């Protein structure tokens, strides 16, 4: 049986490759905030309090562009609502925890951490302390995110823009799902989501981020019914 610290460590190792995109993205986020004219402490506060890359950038861009607080907050809420789906999946592995521990661990639910935890825990259903894996991925991503936004705030965007490192973001997520391309039903759901996102891209409040998954999950539901 694996000890708690071993499971935690496995979680850390699983998300390390994603740092290739998380760290540059964090630096860019910090640098953009300062460039937009926000107080550095305020920029950092978004990393600590909101803790969600894309939503932080949109939030600061909207406010600096003169949008109302309501619009900025709504956009953050819409973009981050995808965590509801992550929580619904991960709750299978977290349901035995006390309420306080659930409240604590929830703060660390992030895209890449969710994806790696889901992948590993699904294949190791009998693991005794699965939440340590979730925590290992989440805490690692949290530290790297905090440190990289701070360095972006202090040093500015020292990553040359010509490198086009923004492209690392779709690549990280591609790396997450590429293995599921072996399963046709998953490929179908991916294509529905992908094309939906292209069509819905201009929907208000960046809502394509949650609308496309909803469309894709409805398609999955219909597919499952037809298969039976």
């Amino acid at each position, binding site marked *: 049986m694996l000890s708690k610290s071993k499971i935690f460590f496995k979680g850390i190792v699983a998300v390390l*490759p*994603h740092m*290739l995109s998380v760290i540059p993205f964090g630096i860019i986020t910090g640098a953009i905030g300062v460039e937009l004219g926000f107080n550095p402490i*305020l920029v950092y*506060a978004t990393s600590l309090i*909101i*803790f969600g890359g894309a939503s932080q950038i949109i*939030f600061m861009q909207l406010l600096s562009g003169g949008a109302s*607080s309501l619009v*900025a*907050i709504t956009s*953050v*809420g819409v973009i*981050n*609502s*995808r*965590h*509801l*789906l*992550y*929580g*619904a999946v991960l709750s299978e592995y*977290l*349901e035995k925890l006390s309420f306080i521990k*659930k409240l604590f*661990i*929830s*703060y660390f639910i992030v*895209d890449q951490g969710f994806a790696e935890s889901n992948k590993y825990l699904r294949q190791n259903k009998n693991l005794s302390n699965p939440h340590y894996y979730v925590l290992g991925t989440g805490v690692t991503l949290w530290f790297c995110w905090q440190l990289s936004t701070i360095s972006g705030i202090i040093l500015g965007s020292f990553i040359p823009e010509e*490198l086009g*490192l923004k*492209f*690392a*973001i*779709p*690549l*990280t*997520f591609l*790396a997450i*799902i*590429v293995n*599921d*391309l*072996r399963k046709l039903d*998953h*490929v179908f759901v*991916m294509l529905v*989501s*992908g094309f939906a*996102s*292209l069509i819905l*891209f201009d929907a208000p409040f960046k809502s*394509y*981020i949650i609308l*496309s*998954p909803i469309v*894709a*999950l409805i398609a*999955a*539901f219909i597919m499952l019914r037809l298969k039976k």
Partner: protein
Amino acid sequence: MTWLSIIISGIVTYFSRMAMVALIDREMLGTKVKEVLNYVPAAVFPAIIFPGVFFNDFGLLVEITDPKIYGAIVALVVGFYSKSVIATIVSGLLSYWFIIFFLLR
């Protein structure tokens, strides 16, 4: 005012992380819902990948010759066979850089 917006955004975001974990009992989800939840990664991540590859910074569709498309194809093939996260990201970035720094100059 900005501080208040950050705090409210933080609460909203935290709620989205916490609600399904701490407030919802798993018994409440039917077997059908649980089955559909298997597809969450397949449903969420393409909605981040597709716009990142097929749209430019101004939200316009890129041309079929865009380096990002070829970088993504290389990453896809390498990832599919290697099953390695790091190989997927690195191969995608390297092929993308090869195109923009060598082929397009």
